[in-house]
């Protein structure tokens, strides 16, 4: 029983934090990228790769650092705190885990090497819902809400063919690939509707439903860590503001009504942190606990978003403006809340699992 970060994990956190504040802050990077479908620049992405952030989950023989989801979570939390709009979750978690979980090392080697050194950006879809079909070496059909499709050079598609479900690699520049950006609540995350019109594809693996479930769990857990970072950041901004903003000749943070709003945020953030820590650990160290941990994290997403709502209430009018960053955090948290289905569905799933566990 030791839930503290190691010195190495703290060093990783500090390195990523420093890099983002110097090279990719909300003002200098996130806001300019709000309307850019690429989400990040070549320069910022190369910088993240140089820190090891894109290869955190990649095995060492392919240039990664072969760390666990706990370290990935450390990185995700910092990216969320900085509202980073790049394709890290897609490439460094979803695609990397698809390749390490579902694909043999030989078949994944080239892509993993590119992901680790930042030269390849990959994305995966669809994680849930209807899948395209494949015939021989060709994929056809639609993938809705595919993240980071504009910046990705490689799309890993789960498609159905005569042998069941396959994982296919598609070169995103191939003829027959068309992507349309989807407007959604969170402009710091780029989502696309993709259509594959008889696109050449390489069949990499035949994943089982359990394999795919494990992949979805990993993505949910990493995304939850990102959201935790965003919630922590907006809470800190609001608490700092309450210490200096004066009304009635005193800091507003001296009023109990405001203090209790701040503690409500703190309580929600610390509960979420508890869930995220457990889920990050379970992802690699306790597979039987992983799925429920991921479902819980998603079920808590709606509650976590209230942290940004409350922060805006603490800021008052200024928090309601475009100019202020608070809305960007709210949107990041609402994006997480809406990802792969709303909180209600996941709350019911937790209830259902509990009912099954007690009856057995």
């Amino acid at each position, binding site marked *: 029983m030791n*839930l503290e970060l190691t010195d190495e994990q703290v060093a990783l956190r500090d390195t990523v934090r420093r890099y983002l504040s110097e090279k990719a802050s909300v003002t200098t990077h996130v806001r300019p990228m709000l309307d850019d479908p690429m989400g990040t620049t070549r320069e910022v992405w190369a910088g993240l790769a140089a820190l090891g952030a894109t290869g955190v989950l990649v095995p060492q023989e392919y240039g990664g650092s072969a760390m666990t989801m706990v370290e990935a979570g450390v990185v995700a939390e910092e990216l969320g705190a900085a509202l980073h709009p790049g394709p890290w979750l897609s490439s460094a978690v979803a695609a990397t885990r698809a390749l390490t979980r579902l694909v043999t090392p030989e078949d994944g080697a080239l892509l993993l090497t590119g992901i680790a050194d930042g030269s390849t950006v990959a994305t995966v879809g669809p994680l849930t819902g209807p899948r395209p079909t494949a015939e021989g070496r060709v994929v056809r059909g639609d993938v809705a809400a595919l993240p980071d499709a504009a910046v990705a050079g490689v799309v890993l598609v789960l498609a159905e063919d005569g042998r069941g479900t396959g994982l296919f690699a598609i070169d995103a520049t191939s003829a027959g690939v068309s992507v349309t950006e989807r407007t959604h609540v969170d402009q710091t995350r780029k989502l696309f509707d993709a259509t594959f019109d008889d696109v050449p594809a390489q069949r990499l693996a035949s994943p089982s439903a359990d394999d795919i479930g494990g992949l979805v769990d990993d993505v949910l857990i990493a995304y939850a860590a990102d959201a935790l970072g965003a919630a922590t950041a907006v809470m800190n901004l609001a608490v700092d503001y309450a210490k200096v903003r004066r009304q009635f000749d005193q800091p507003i943070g001296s*009023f109990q009504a405001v203090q209790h709003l701040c503690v409500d945020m703190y309580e929600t953030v610390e509960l979420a942190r508890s869930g995220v*820590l457990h889920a990050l650990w379970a992802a690699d160290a306790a597979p039987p606990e992983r799925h429920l941990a991921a479902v819980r994290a998603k079920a808590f997403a709606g509650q976590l978003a209230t942290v940004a709502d409350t922060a805006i209430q603490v800021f008052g009018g200024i928090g309601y403006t475009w100019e202020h960053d608070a809305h960007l955090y709210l949107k990041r948290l609402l994006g997480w809340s809406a990802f792969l289905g709303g909180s209600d569905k996941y709350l019911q799933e937790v209830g259902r699992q509990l009912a099954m566990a007690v009856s057995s």
Partner: protein
Amino acid sequence: MDFSYPPEVEQFRKELRAWLAANLTDDVVAAGRRRGRDPDTFETLRVWDATLADAGWAPVSWPQAYGGRGATVLEQLAYAEETTDARAPVPLNVIGMNNIAPAIMQYGTDAQKLELLPRMVRADDIWCQGMSEPEAGSDLASLRTRAVLDGDDYVVNGQKIWTSLGHRADWCQLYVRTDPDAPKHTGISCLIVDMALPGIEVRPLVTLNGDADFAEVFFNDVRVPADALLGPLNGGWQVATTTLSHERAGAARLYAQLEVQLRDLVADLADCEVDGRPVLEDSATLRRLGEVAVRIKYLEVLCQRSISATLHGGNALGSASLAKSVWAEVGQELAALAFDVLGPLGGHRRWSDRRLTSRSLTIAGGTTQINKSVTATRVLGLPRR
């Protein structure tokens, strides 16, 4: 990062589980549910507490000299999980063991420690704590009960209220004002008072669900021997805060208790139908169960984080007091859910009772609002007014 318990703790857990399986009877569990509200179950619980103590299974965290076994923090955690899971009754002297004993260990004489502590654990003596007064609730330091030295005795006058077990107690850890001219926190002392002394009058207070859980205690020229002083004269606030910080260390029972309640609730719901459909297929009910279940699991991890921080030098950041607020709120949500579903069906006395008694969760031991104000200033660093 590692959430698992080391093998020696699992061994400890196994031994305890085996002992509980062999010794904890249904009668004792039933008596625990009633919390000793009638004389028969009170006697059953006394015998159980003594059985537990004689077997060395209470209070595990204490030094052996006072009847404990010097258990490590993780063993204490496992102890709380296992005893709660087995539905073993909470000890009659839970307040004494958690809140009073630590102060006796720190400030008491050797004679006091050896005479009082083992009897407390066996429930040979019942203990109460005289803190709150009609005019000193959340603002505890404004208490007015006076103690004036007269020869070899303190003469005590005043009134205490919300005194748990006041009507059953043999001993009272009493907080009194000994220096009326000092600032309010510095004029308080702590006395250990024999409840049989002349001039003490106890009136049970009936709670909202009809039980006499606590009492008002009146002190009318009660002569308490001067050697009953615990800790320094006018140092009672120090003694009180020692006890309060010990109370927070027992966070493990918080989540374990809610986990058991949740399992019991789901088991009761499994037999129920509303409008011809099983309740456990109703999406609104499943959603609320999910909400409670997620928060209970996160409370568990919050408590574990607090313990990990103590063990490994991390920053607990007030997670123990946060845990108390969360426990109280989730306990009320669970009770509300139980009543909303089972209440209309009738016949579920336990849950309608729980719906009522859960009101106390956000009041007893410090209101959630006071707790939040303390967290705001001490943890978040917000300015005081």
